[in-house]
């Protein structure tokens, strides 16, 4: 019987202790913020949306290789022989047209593994986090600025250049072979 009342007493007493804590909390400032109206400034290291500064990208594909979930897709076309593609902000010469640079933010796991290997600091994570959409396909972010016509033009040129190169190489090989034959031809009569 005594135990019974003791239990009741203890329950009420400890509840009051707990209530004391909540009561004290009534007079502290709220830690929550009214989100859409008030926004936190995020620290600069925040890993939210990815951003690629295309002027700085040299198309080395280091980021594509580093990504554990393969959500970056890069396609490059070699620049012409005497075409000047400019320089990146840290002074590297650009040699490739980056005609396609897609990042599927729907697949991205925000690990930032792609950011570290980039030699020019072109790809980076930004504190921008409000990019929710109604349609998942819009999460595929395209960074390249080339139009389809430009791409096909560039590809055509690359193909031609390659062909020309291949032709030149073949010609060279042929010439070398002929020279060899000729040399062999001149040798033959001697041995007779």
């Amino acid at each position, binding site marked *: 019987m005594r135990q019974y009342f003791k239990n009741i007493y203890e*329950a009420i007493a*400890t509840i009051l202790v*707990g209530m004391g*804590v909540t009561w004290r909390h009534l007079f502290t400032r709220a*830690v929550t913020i009214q989100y859409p109206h008030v926004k936190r400034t995020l620290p600069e*290291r925040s890993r939210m949306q990815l951003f690629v500064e295309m002027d700085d990208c040299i198309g080395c594909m280091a980021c594509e290789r*580093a990504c554990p979930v393969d959500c970056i897709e890069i396609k490059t076309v070699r620049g012409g022989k005497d075409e000047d593609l400019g320089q990146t902000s840290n002074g590297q010469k650009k040699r490739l047209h980056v005609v396609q640079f897609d990042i599927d933010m729907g697949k991205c796991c925000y*690990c930032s593994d792609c950011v570290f290997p980039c030699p020019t600091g072109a790809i980076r*994570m930004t504190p921008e986090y409000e990019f929710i959409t109604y349609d998942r396909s819009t999460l595929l972010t395209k960074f390249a600025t080339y139009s389809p016509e430009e791409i096909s033009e560039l590809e055509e040129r690359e193909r031609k250049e390659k062909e020309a190169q291949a032709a030149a190489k073949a010609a060279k090989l042929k010439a070398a072979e002929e020279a060899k034959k000729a040399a062999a031809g001149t040798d033959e009569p001697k041995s007779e």
Partner: protein
Amino acid sequence: MKKSNIPESQFELQVPDSLKTEEMTLSMGPQHPSTHGVLQVILKTDGEIITSAKPQIGYLHRCFEKHAENITWHQVIPFTDRLDYIASMNNNLGYVIGLERMMNLEVNERAEHLRVVVSELNRIASHLIALGTYGLDIGAYTPFLYVFRDREKILDLFEEICGARLLYNYIWVGGVAYDAPDGWREKVLEFCDYFDPKVKEYNDILTFNKIFIERTANVGVIPAEVGINYGVSGPSLRGSGVDFDLRRDDPYSIYDRFDFNVITGKGEMGTVGDTWDRYWVRVAEMVESVKIIRQALENLPEGDAKETVPRNIKVPAGEYYMRTETPRGELGFYIISDGSKMPNRVKVRSPAFCNLSVLPAVAPGVMIADLVAIIGSLDIVLGEVDR
């Protein structure tokens, strides 16, 4: 009558034979809020008393181990984050130290200290969740809000040091991904000062509340030898009075330099190894973690934390089993390398999985409502159970 190896006290509610009804099969979960994720428990009940409980797992299976065989050594680290997503830092640490030991890599002192600080902060964050959700499971809503308020402070610290709030990819082979920004050390110390009095607040509001004690003491007792036989580890095992902590007994990183106590359950409110003991171990462990953080920050050396990060990770052929103490227990990575740039095999010995396996042993004979208390006190994370 003794049905299992549980103390008699749990059988006080035996139904007299004349009142016995048919057994009922009850499926608890996978959407049940107190199963901490997507766990399904198939219960056989005799009235209100459980006769058998069978956890059904696999709802969150993501093939971590198979994935790891197809990506490079470094790329596995973000995947380890996703095992136990409440304590990602500790997961990173286990895998990374395993690789470092295989590679015989010396790690920069500053990086080592930062690793300990973030791991212990993460341990506090994880135990806070364990506390809050445990209260929530058995009907105390307010403490949940309080612990989340304080956990938020830890997440803010993490966001500042590595940019992410939950899945950090912070601890790398040979060091850490980012050095601590200016003023971070002071902020952590500030948090330590802020946190110490908060533990008393949790104790006032939840731990020593009579109703809470009545609800948890003498419930779900895991005797020490049952715990050991089932491979239970971490706070759940220490709650049963086993004095075993890998940070002290098999030191990794620089844990051997710090002075901290290993907390064990003493049965203060009931039996040794009851749910209250497991809960209490977590509360007391947070205080110890704060101690470790203070010591690590005191001797935080200057230098470049990324100094020893190798450009390419080359793991010599061989195998290694690395075990570390995460907030849930002994996390083991069994790593096999064939010398190539991808792991040959990464097997995970996940503490939550082993802790959950004890459930069928302790569940028979308890009330359905107490099962919720038992699952909560084991503090499982389904991401790690299913991997």
